[in-house]
Each structure stands twice: as C-alpha cells, then as structure tokens.
C-alpha cells in the first residue's frame, strides 16, 4: 500500500506524443464533447490507428450521422462528411463506390445506428462494403439531451421513459453477426489502449468491419452505463476464442450483460468493389464476343 507511484509530468510526455506523429491526424477544432465523455478515447484511438497504419490523411474520409458521436469528423484531420441522422452507411457506401482508393470510416451513436439508421446496417454488412463502422454505444440519446435509445437497459429512467424503459434492448453484436458482417468486435472507452488496437485492426480488415464501443454519457446517464458500472461489467475474450467460429461468436454475443472485449468474428469474403468488378468483367466479356 505504501509503494510510491512515480508521478508522470505532461511536459515529459509531450515530447513523446509529438514525436509519435499521430497529432497530425487531429484537427484544429477541439472536441465539443462534455468533459469526461467517453468519446475522447475514440478521437485518440482513431488518430493513433491512422498513424500506425501510415495512411495519408488526404485519402481518408470520416463519415458520420447526427448526434454527439457524429460530431467526430470535425475533430480529426481527414476529409469528412457529417451527413444526416441515421444515414451514415449509405453515404459512406456511395463514397467508397465513388472512389475505391479512399479509406472510409463511418461513425455514429447507438440511436443513429440502431434506431433511425437500423435499416441500412444489414445491407452494408451483407454487401461487405470495404469500410469500418465505429458505433459509439452509450445507450442513450446524448445530443438531444437524454432520451432512451434502442440499447437502453430495461428499467432505465430517461426524459422519455419517466416511468422506466420497458422496451427490450437490441443486441448489436448478435445483429451484426447475423447480418453477415465480416469483422465484428467490441471495445470500451475506458480501456483506451485496447480500443486503439481494435480500431487499428478494424481498419486493416478488408471488408465491412463493425466495432461497437461501449461508452458512458457522463452528462445524461448517472445510473446505468457509467464508468464504474461498465468497468465492472466488461471482461476479456475467453481464452482460446476462435474468431472464425460463428457459433462461438454468437454464444459470446448472447452474454451482453457481461460484454466481452475483442474480435468476436472475422471472415474473408469478396467485397462490394470486387463483386462489382466481376460484373464489369462479365459485361465487357459478353459485349466483346
């Protein structure tokens, strides 16, 4: 107990942070999120991941819907498109089809993803559009000041569920697995190093990668998805989890009360661009003969 912890001084760290190079992926705008919001970890995580992957920022597009999470593109120094509530995936799909050389990263909150935008997820996943979808899941509507969301727990009291939420929450991990996403993983804003590794792996994956990031809304949720609760709930992937085994991934996803952190499932299959190229080849062969 009386072991002394050596203090770390920011000035000493600064040199290290600057030298590392990821700051060039931060935009000049400072995040407008509330102090303590889980989303800060995502901004850090993505910039470090882009730096690690050595991607040129002019070839990266960050696309988002509407919500606190969706403010994200303004805080990273890449091309960005802040679109409409729920429509990040179709816009991102269009961007990728429009220019396949771009690295496309889609971002949104849980309401943006699973409520208003819920109809688009299966299609981006089944088409295996080569992009990364980061869902910042705080189980609440942050931007509109604290209403219930499709991932809010039963019994959660919010401004729109004053007598407790009675709608069973969705299970995003099971959904994405059954939609056919070729990379499905989970991370937690309270474990930023793991989160950064997961974002890096998700971007590196060829095909549609879905990363759910559990994150507290410190302003509108004082009872459920708090750092304290989430830190107690999350757990590591079980030893020897086989990321190619859909049954194992589903079993893991079913235990959403104790969210496991890591890559649940990963597969390789043709991307939308490859499928389209096949059509182009067939059409051109047919018209040549």
């Amino acid at each position: 107990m009386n072991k002394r912890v050596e203090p770390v001084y920011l000035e000493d760290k600064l040199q290290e942070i600057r030298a590392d190079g990821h700051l060039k992926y931060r935009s000049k705008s400072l995040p407008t999120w509330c102090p303590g919001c889980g989303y800060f970890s995502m901004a850090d995580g993505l910039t470090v991941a882009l730096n690690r992957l050595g991607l040129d920022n002019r070839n990266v597009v960050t696309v988002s819907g509407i919500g606190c999470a969706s403010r994200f593109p303004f805080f990273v120094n890449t091309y960005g498109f802040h679109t409409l509530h729920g429509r990040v995936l179709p816009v991102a799909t269009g961007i990728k089809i429009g220019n396949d050389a771009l690295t496309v990263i889609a971002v949104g909150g849980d309401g943006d993803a699973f409520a208003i935008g819920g109809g688009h997820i299966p299609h981006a996943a089944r088409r295996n559009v080569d992009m990364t979808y980061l869902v910042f899941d705080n189980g609440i509507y942050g931007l509109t000041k604290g209403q219930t969301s499709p991932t809010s727990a039963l019994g959660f009291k919010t401004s729109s569920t004053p007598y407790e939420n009675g709608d069973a929450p969705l299970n995003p991990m099971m959904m994405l697995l059954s939609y056919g996403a070729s990379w499905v993983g989970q991370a937690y804003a309270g474990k930023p190093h793991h989160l950064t590794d997961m974002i890096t792996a998700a971007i590196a994956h060829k095909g549609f990668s879905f990363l759910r990031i559990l994150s507290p809304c410190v302003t509108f949720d004082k009872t459920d998805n708090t750092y304290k609760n989430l830190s107690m709930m999350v757990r590591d992937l079980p030893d020897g989890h086989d990321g190619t085994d859909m049954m194992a991934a589903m079993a893991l996803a079913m235990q959403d009360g104790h969210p496991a952190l890591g890559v649940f499932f990963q597969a390789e299959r043709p991307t939308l661009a490859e499928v389209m190229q096949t059509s182009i080849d067939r059409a051109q062969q047919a018209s040549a003969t």
Partner: protein
Amino acid sequence: MNKSGTDIQFAICGSAGDGTIASGDIVKRAAAAVGFHVIAFDVYPPEIRGFGKCISRIRVSAEQAYSLKEKTDVFISLNDSHAIPHVGEVRDFGAVIYDDRSIAPIREGAHITAHIRPAQIPYGLPIRQISEQATNAARSRNIVVLGYMAGLLKLPSRPFREVIAAKFATKPQAVIDANIRAFDAGLEAGRKVFRLDDVDVGTVPDHGGSEAVMMTGNGAIVRGFLEAGIQSYFGYPITPATSIMERLAVEMPKQGGKFLQTEDEISAIAATIGAGFAGSRAATATSGPGLALMTEMLGLGVMAEVPSVVVVSQRGGPSTGLPTKTEQSDLNLAVFGGSGDAQRIVIAPTNVEGCYRCAGMAFEIAETYQTPVIVLIDLYLSNRYETVFPSHENTFAPKPRKVPELAEGEPYKRFAFTESHISPRALPGDAGMVHTVTGLEHNELGRPGDGDHMRMNAKRHEKLISATRYPGLTVAKRFGDAGKVDVGILGWGSTFGEILEAMFEAQDAGISCSAMKAVMLSPLPVDELRAFFDDCRTVLVPELNYEGQFANLVSGALGRPVVRLNRTVATPMPVADILAEVKRLAAEADSPERIPATAGVGS
C-alpha cells in the same frame, strides 16, 4: 404538327397475352426503319398476369408530331370486348380491322361490328383461321393483322419482315419462319381487298443521312447518362422509373460503371450524394413516392453543396396512387420538397429528345452549381416512343476538372464567398485541402456555426440564377404566332406535346395563339416567362394535376393571373379539351365586354 405529308395513327387493342404490344412494336420499328417520325404510347393493365386491356397507339408522320392524335386512322382489334369501347376513336373513313369468324357463339351486341359506325370502314377477316393455316397455331394472330394492314395500305413489306426477323432473332429459326409465314398470309389477304386509299402513306422524309433511333423517354435518359459517362448509379425499383435502372444495370458495367440496387430510396440518394462527394458522376431515378423519401437528403445536397442527379418520373398520386397512369402532380415536391430554403435545379423535358439532352447535361450542370439537379418527367414521357435523330458528336462527356489553387499557407475554404457564389471544390484525395462538409450551417471553412446563415443562404440561392442561361440548354421556348396574341398556352413536361397540337389547330381555326414551354422549373426563367405574359392577352396553363401546381408557381413568381386547365383523368391531356378552352378564351378576347377568366380548377 403541320399538315403536310404522311400522318397516320395506328391502334392495336387486345388483351394481355395477345401480343398487342409486340405487334405495335413491330409497326413503330418498321416505320422508323423506313425513315418516318414515330410517336407511340402503350397502355398496359396494372396487373402483371391476367387478361387486362392493352392498347398500342402509334402515330407515323413525315414531320415530327408532338403528341398522339385524338382520332385513329387504322384500328385493329385482337379482342373485341376490350376493343369495343375504343371503336369511337376511329375517325370517319378510318379502318377497323377485326376477326369475322368467331369461335364461340356471340351475344347480341357483343360483336365489334355492332359498334362500328356507318362512316367507319369495317375490314373483317378470319384472323385466327389464317394464323392457324399459316403456322398451325393461333398465336400469330398479332402478326397476321400486321400483314393484312400492310396489304391494305400497300405498305412496303420488307421493313416489316426485317423487324419481325430481328424481334425473334434469339428464337429458333422455325419461330422466325412461322412469323414471316403469318405475315405473308395476312399480306396476301390484305392485298385482295380494295385498298384503303383514304389513308395516304406519302413519301419518306429526308434526314440528311442521319439514322432514326427509336427510344422511349426512359431509354433516352439512359442514353444521355451513358454518353455523359455516368460512373455510379444507385436505385430502388418503382414504376415508371424502373426501366432506367434495368437498362443501366446492363449497360453501365460495359463501360466500367458501378451499379447498385439499394435497400430503399433514402439510401439511393444518400449513396448518390456520397459518390458525388467523392467526385463520381452519380445518379438515381425514382417516382413520386421515392422522391418523398429523398427530400431530407436533397436538403443535405443543397447545404453541403454536393452534386447529384435525380430523375423523377411522375405517376398518379398521392401515396401509392395510380402506379401505371401518368400525372404531373409532383412538381411541388420536386421544386420545394424538404426542410428549409433548399433551392435546387429542376429541369423538365417535354419530349423524348429532351429527355436525352437533359439527362446528358444534368451531370455537368450539377457539377457546375454543386447542387442536386432533378430531371422531372412522367409516365407518359417515360414510356412513349419517339424517333430521335441523334447527333454524332458526344457533347456530354466530362471536361477536365480544375483543382482549386491555393496560395502558400492559405487555408482551403470549401465554401468561400466568391463573385459567382460558387466556391472552388476540392475532392477527397486532393492534397492540402482536407475539409469536412456538413448539413449544419457553416462558415467558409465548413465549420459549424450560425453566424453566416444569411450570407450562406444567399450564396446557395444566388449561385443558381445563372443556370437559367446555361449554354446549350433550352430553358424556355416560344412557338406559334410571334408578337401580341389573344391566347398564350404555357406548359411544361409531357403535356406540351398536346399543347402544341392544340395550338396548331387553334391557328388553323384563325385564332391568334402561341405556346411556350418552360423546361427549367427551378430556378424559373422569369425573363422569358414575363416577356410571354406581356405578349399574351390571356395565358392558359394546362397540366395534369388538380390545382395547377405550375400555374401557382408561375403566377406566384410573376404576380400575374393565369387561366388554369387541370385534368386528373389518368391519361395524357386531351387535345380537344385544350382547344375548347383556347376557343373559349379567344371568344372572350373578341367580345367587347370581356368576361373575367374562370380561374378555378378544371371545368
């Protein structure tokens, strides 16, 4: 059209499964192959299966006609119960061709002969029997009648044989032979009867070597898109726009284009705008219900200043409405749909050739003004056939892009205020110009903020004004008498064909009359419109909607009264209705005490 030379209208009526539409198709292709102008419109039953009524109407002329005629010259019945209600559309001394050997006993009055008027000329022949004799099957009745008609009118038979052979080219040779036999058997029968010399085929016009291409409005849209080098297309099936996506699905990959059927119209326009943001020539096509879903995204396209092209083919509404019938009731949605002040460009071609030109130019206009461009047509234009004599140089291909230039150390302003109100656009991939666009109000850099809202709103509106003078695009055009006239007819979209026909007839009746078509509906070409109003004593606005959506738009913009003529009869506007209204207005103009024009809805 002017009354010189050939002008024959054919109509073939039968039930689904009789080969009605196929036989009409052969007539129009044969006529076009010879070099005539063709305009044609088929009416289908809404059901896919069953024995609903089909009518194929084809007008063949030496000069370009603008609409179908009220009266048909040669009418063929392949099914009497469907044909009987239409016998009345045959003109005096026109021909009615029918089967005179019924295979079943017929109720009193159920035979077509009971409905042919004395002035009409009946031509009965044993259609089924001839078909069975020629091909051992009754299936070629629709070809037998074509042969008969060719014989009756002394039409050259070679083009028919060629078109029949081409139509069945993918079938075994025996099928082609059987159909040619059916045609020849009909031809022989037709040559035996006395010639119908009241219908004059006349001579083939000279087109200076240019070859006729038969196209529907939707086909013309596709051709325009392909010539413009369309790179991405996103769509969701809906009548009457579906054939655009189906044709593009076949043709785009041949030129390396990317085609995707999306999960709904919201994603179709979202992906179109996404691809446009990435610098791709992208488009989508839909009908009114799909456009209703797209309006929020169109607002984003306006706000984020991203080019996109949306073809909208209207059908009867509201809601699911009349999916297989034409109407012009989505003008308000196209021009105004969405939240906020979201001015966009809307162009509405009036004929098939116009569909081709508007679709071809839409990308460049969208790129120039960095905003959505809606090409607004309707079912009548989507599905009707016209002969187009396309020019051979492709003027729609993209011109080289200008990458914005930045002075050293200067930040890139995506939404910079400029004299033209258009800001130089960088694309993802361009170095040194990384930026984020947003549907939130923003400053010149694209950063969210309300401070510049008034100026930005002005920028988004003002930049479009010059679109009404876009080089090579007809935004409005006047026809008929020059100078001051008693009656001006102002129209838009497919209805303008009927308007022109009515205008010619009114002129023949001695009425001083001219017509103007408005092609650009947003922004409105107010100078041209005002000049027209200045010259016309009364302006009549015929359109296929209940209240007069274009009438409201124009009279609101100009502050001038108009006389409305509205029909929602699920068919194109009857020329006779327009003519009657023109005559009424001309009579009022003549009378010393002018009766105020009735401004109410359709009488």
